[in-house]
């Protein structure tokens, strides 16, 4: 047992002290920090031109004037208007008006201006042209169009003699609530989840799946490449004569697990640290996340599936790493493992809105996928206890098998050099060793 911890300690120390590891961790932490602060940073630059000033000339002639003024009134009535209409005095002739407005743009007073034709068209408004220095001001014209449609609607409704209440009724939004229920035994009202709970659970599932995937990808590759490196530097021969291969393999896997946990904990700390900064409080509040709504059982399941999933993949990566004798060949050899973990990850991520699909149900019993997809089902649908136990049981059995086979392959593979051994050679050599 003692030498097991020696291996664990050595693995952790070498990894954490390594320059490459420190640098990548810091870079990812930096990217996370920037990502979290991005809304705030954008806001800082965005503040000045939140509302666009649009000029118009209050020309004589009732229709023209009323269109501009009613737009102005419409935007002023809004809480956070995206456009502010700025009226200008009529200078008497079109050329003078034009030059006045252009000057206003130059001075930064307005971003552009709206010109009205003299005649009303069929749609009830005069011909309008929006003029600005920028090309492609579609969002601006769309916004103005939308506002004008609403203004027209209000005008017509008013003319039709509807009361204010009737008008309010017409514009009131219609809402449908969703509540998830459980139809099996013991299903009562309390077991249903509100949309908010569902949202939080979905968040937890999302985060756990991403963490599991990241942990598997980074540590899996690290485990495999470390073993291959030990093999190619022949230090393996000395290690195997010092400590039993099984201890060595699990020491390495466990050490790597601790490293990944340290890394993930560091990222979480970075996320929380950034999120709790005063300027980010508002943004998070908007997201409406209430962590107290998380089902504690889900967290337990998530942790269990995280551990088992990690362990299963780690042992297989160790086996792959021990077969390959040169680091150059490693990428090719771990490819199948990478694809499997990618497949599990994507099935889960793309099925997050359809957690009850046949694909998810079937894959939640297949060992290498189940850590991803069973977690999805547990978080977003009601799963009977026997289903959970069955999935978990299959996972545990497959871990046992994989540990046994991986340890054998490890014991055998680490002493095989030269070309990549064929399956036949591996099988034959495996028979020769006791673990």
């Amino acid at each position: 047992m003692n030498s097991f911890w020696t291996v664990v300690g050595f693995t952790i120390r070498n990894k954490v002290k390594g320059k490459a590891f420190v640098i990548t961790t810091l870079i990812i932490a930096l990217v996370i920090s920037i990502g979290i602060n991005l809304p705030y940073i954008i806001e800082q630059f965005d503040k000045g031109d939140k509302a666009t000033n649009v000029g118009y000339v209050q020309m004589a002639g009732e229709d023209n004037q009323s269109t501009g003024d009613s737009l102005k009134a419409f935007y002023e009535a809004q809480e956070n208007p995206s456009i502010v209409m700025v009226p200008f005095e009529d200078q008497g002739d079109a050329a003078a008006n034009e030059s006045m407005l252009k000057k206003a743009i130059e001075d930064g007073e307005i971003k552009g201006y709206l010109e009205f034709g003299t005649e009303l068209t069929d749609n009830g408004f005069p011909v309008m042209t929006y003029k600005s220095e920028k090309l492609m001001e579609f969002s601006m014209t769309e916004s103005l169009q939308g506002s004008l449609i609403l203004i027209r609607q209000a005008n017509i409704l008013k003319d039709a003699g509807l009361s204010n209440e009737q008008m309010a009724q017409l514009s009131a939004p219609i809402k449908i609530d969703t509540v998830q229920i459980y139809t099996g035994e013991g299903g009562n009202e309390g077991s249903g989840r509100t949309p908010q709970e569902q949202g939080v659970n979905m968040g937890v599932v999302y985060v756990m799946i991403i963490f599991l995937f990241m942990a598997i990808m980074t540590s899996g590759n690290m485990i495999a490449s470390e073993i291959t490196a030990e093999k190619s530097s022949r230090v393996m021969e000395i290690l195997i004569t010092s400590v039993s291969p099984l201890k060595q393999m699990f020491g390495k896997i466990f050490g790597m697990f601790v490293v990944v946990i340290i890394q993930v904990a560091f990222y979480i700390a970075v996320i929380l640290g950034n999120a709790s900064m005063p300027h980010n409080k508002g943004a998070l509040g908007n997201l409406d996340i209430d962590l107290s709504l998380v089902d504690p059982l889900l967290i337990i399941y998530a942790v269990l599936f995280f551990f088992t999933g990690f362990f299963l993949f780690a042992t297989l990566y160790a086996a792959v790493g021990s077969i390959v004798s040169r680091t150059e060949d490693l990428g090719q050899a771990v490819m199948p493992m990478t694809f499997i973990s990618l497949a599990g990850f994507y099935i889960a991520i793309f099925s997050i809105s359809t957690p009850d699909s046949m694909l998810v149900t079937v894959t939640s019993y297949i060992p290498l996928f189940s850590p991803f997809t069973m977690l999805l089902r547990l978080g977003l649908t009601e799963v009977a206890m026997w289903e959970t136990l069955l999935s978990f049981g299959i996972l545990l059995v497959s871990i046992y098998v994989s540990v046994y086979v991986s340890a054998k392959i490890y014991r055998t593979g680490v002493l095989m050099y030269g070309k990549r051994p064929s399956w036949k050679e591996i099988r034959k050599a495996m028979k020769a060793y006791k673990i």
Partner: protein
Amino acid sequence: MKPLVVENVTKQYADKTAVNNNSFEVGEGEIYGLLGANGAGKTTTMRMVLGLIFPDEGKILYNGKPYSNEQLSKLGYLPEERGLYPKVKVSDQIIYLSQLRGMSKGDADRNLKYWLEKFEVPEYYNKKVEELSKGNQQKIQFIAAVNHKPQIVIMDEAFSGLDPVNVELLKSTVKELRDSGTSILFSTHRMEHVEELCRNITILHRSNTVLKGSLKEIKKRFPRERVILGTDNAIGGIERIAGVTGVTRTEQGYDIQISMESAGAEILKLAMEQANVNHFEIKEPTLNEIFIRTVGDRHE
């Protein structure tokens, strides 16, 4: 009870026999030479002793006990090729390897410092292995094999890649280890090292033991076939003596091949009749010659 006993071990790979019915014993404070041409089965034998691979037949006993994890900590291994972490500091990995074999961290550190001092390279303590030259890496490799005070050390080509000064340094260290009671299984292609260090040897050829026993007896078994003669003047008629098969004139005299030892006396008598004899020697065959004859003979 000898520390290491190898009894009739046989190892078969897919289609060929790597080691066939090999037996030997290494006593306490003994260096045992394992010789053979390339691919003769030396490394396979050593790996079996180390427990890296298991023999198909026969057994290996350590102090009378079969292989187990408990025996691991008593073994030290100096592999033929470098086996160290290139990117890890010397101190870190030597202490790690010693700890794996059951030594405490403090003891391992103390021993490491002792060895570095002994090899006159204390500054390597904080260096990474990849920063060292090949010869110096070999020193570190040597320390890795002996730092945990093993009872049995297996050395595969211990002196390869070293300059003559360092070969002497390591050789004297190996002798010290032997004198302190360590059993050493030793393989090399340098026969003069074997003659200097080993009491008993085994010569392997194509997986089989072709020659085995104490070095002295082995040498006696081979006839003395060479006479070195140093004289002032030329000697006439040596080639006519019965049993002389070849004569070569050298700067100092003659190098004479004989097929029977009695011819030696005849040569001396003849030489003394004709000139002053400065040097006369009937040479023992060197291990090099024995090796080439044993292994070479069976080559065809």
